[in-house]
């Protein structure tokens, strides 16, 4: 079951802090992060990539849903 992080509406760098915490807790697998600006998509992608995760995102209405993956799905 994927971990979900709701980082909508949070100022820098809180979405990144929440995402990093979730990734470190999960260790691998899939983490879904919801943000509401492209700035946070880029910031969270950078943070995830540094920890060895792969990031993709999808725009759903006014928000962006990011899927972060590491290791076997």
């Amino acid at each position, binding site marked *: 079951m994927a971990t979900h992080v709701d980082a909508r509406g949070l100022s820098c760098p809180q979405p990144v802090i929440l995402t990093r915490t979730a990734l470190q807790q999960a260790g691998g697998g899939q983490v879904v992060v919801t943000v509401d600006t492209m700035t946070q998509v880029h910031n969270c992608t950078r943070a995830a990539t540094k920890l060895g995760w792969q990031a*993709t995102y999808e725009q759903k209405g006014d928000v962006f849903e990011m899927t972060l993956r590491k290791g076997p799905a």
Partner: protein
Amino acid sequence: MNKPKGFFASPVGIIVVGLVIGGLAATLQKAGNPANMGVCVACFTRDIAGGLGLHQAKPVQYIRPEIPAFCLGAFLAALAFREFKPRTGSAPITRFILGMTAMIGALVFLGCPWRALLRLAGGDWNAILGLAGLIIGIAVGVQCLKLGFSLGRSYPTRAVAGLAMPFAMLALLVLAVLYPHFGENAALFRSEKGPGAAAAHVAVSIIVGLVIGFLAQRTRFCTVGGIRDVILMRDFHLLSGVIAFLVAAFALNLVYGQFHPGFTLGADAEGKVVMQPAAHTTHWLNFAGMLLAGLSFTLAGGCPGRQVFLSGEGDGDAGVFVLGMLTGAAVAHNFLMVGNGPQAPYIVVIALVVVLLIGILGRERLAVGR
């Protein structure tokens, strides 16, 4: 599924934009803006406060076109790239206070983080104390964030709320161009001497401001964020842009003959010590002022430039922070708290206590849900 990409989000993009902004800052000085102050967001917001008559410090009164142009450049970029998103509701009064304390701290040092870099690039070694204070202030802010500090969420709002700051800035820009004078002892005010009298041509200031606003919105250029991200997670992305800013300003200062190293500029013919431009040598106040500013900016989510750019892309909370800065500038001058002025030591200590309390008491549990 998309993968985040694009030139402006790339490592090269942020470095190129840092070089451009730093180069433009030094060039604005060559074109007439005050020395070591090419695009100081704190100083220029303070000048605007003076121009509007919110304070009566005669040498620093001028409706600087750069600040509204920053906001409008970011507004245009956000519109062009469909990133204009009206949002608000995240602790506005706290952000207003943080805007005030950030500005008060910056004006004790006599410059925002951008100017700290520009002062260093111009050879003003007092900036080293300021930058040291800034880094420590940001580090303290990062600790507060790690312990759970949050100003809470913002929420989508109506377009009119997101347009408020861009329209206010447009009005300011119109005033800057027309500069109407409404009578004796009435606004608008404009310095006849001092830093407020030093200005590039208004058209040059507007064009440069729009370009910087546009580029900074695209890259999320942020001086405080640069240092914060290194402390928080060893991420050098934003900092590489900040270093590029410093390098470009330094290189062009050498070319333009604007580099004069020292804590002071030596003694004049009468043996009187000549200070660096708009600077003082009270080291602990240079340090403590920027410590206060760094902590305030970090808790609010970004440097003063970034707050102006965010206000242009519809972030009403960043707009409230900018209004706090404008008010803080007026208060700082009206109560003689600027530089090493008589009230500066007291206000720095008091404001530091206030901001630390905000940082400690503002913790919130934002659990990572499953």
